[in-house]
């Protein structure tokens, strides 16, 4: 089970932030290659691992950059709102350091953080391990 250990300057302030690459799904990539369509460039962003998120959410610009269309909708509840309907996209997320790969559904929503473009939620964490070592300012993340 490959894992990455990320050091942080101030883990308490920043939280567990990790660089991830977003790509189209393997199935769509296969389809594009068959049709000889060019593959979109990966979108590289910073994501926050958030145990308070039941699912992954990302900025709507990311699926837009990959030229993706939605495969569903879902309702989300946040501290300030209830039952807002958002699009869902099927995408591939790669953590390049150890080539950790997760392919699944991501919810598109407006995210306010200037630096954070994605929240990695418990739907990803159910397939992995998160070790938060506060006193050494680092965390370890692993995916099956």
């Amino acid at each position, binding site marked *: 089970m490959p894992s990455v250990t990320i050091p942080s300057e101030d883990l308490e302030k920043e939280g567990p932030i990790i660089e991830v690459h977003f790509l*189209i*799904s393997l*199935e*769509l990539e296969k*389809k594009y290659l068959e*049709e000889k369509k060019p593959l979109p460039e990966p979108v590289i962003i910073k994501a*926050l691992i*958030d145990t*308070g*998120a*039941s*699912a992954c*959410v990302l900025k*709507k610009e990311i*699926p*837009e950059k990959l*030229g*993706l*269309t*939605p*495969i*569903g*909708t*879902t*309702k*989300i*509840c*946040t*501290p*300030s*709102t*209830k*039952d*807002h*309907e*958002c*699009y869902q996209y*099927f995408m591939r997320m790669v953590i390049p350091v150890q080539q950790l790969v997760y*392919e*699944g*559904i991501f*919810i*598109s*929503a*407006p*995210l*306010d*953080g200037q630096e*954070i473009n994605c*929240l990695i*939620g418990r739907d990803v964490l159910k397939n992995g391990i998160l070790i938060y070592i506060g006193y050494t300012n680092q965390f370890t993340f692993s995916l099956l």
Partner: protein
Amino acid sequence: MKMKIQKRKKFKGRKSKLIMVNVLSKEIETYEKNKQRLLKESFGKFVLIKGEEIINVFDTSSDAIKVGIDKFGNTPFLVKQILEIEPTQNFTSNLIRISTCLQ
């Protein structure tokens, strides 16, 4: 992807009204029309819908999505779990700024 936005212009000085058009509205309508039958026959499974057509029902969402991509490529289609009450996703973070998500 960009949502189609129909802007209804009003008279001078009045606010214009934005009407959001969901690109999956036809598929959602098809689901709602067939929901009771789907609940009886395939509760908990995942249905794949394109336009007014129910393509098939699958055991997992990824199976349904993969068939959807294979058949329709990168065009909108709906994969939905067949449940009486639709679950919501919960976020404790205040980073999510909601005006409307479907845009």
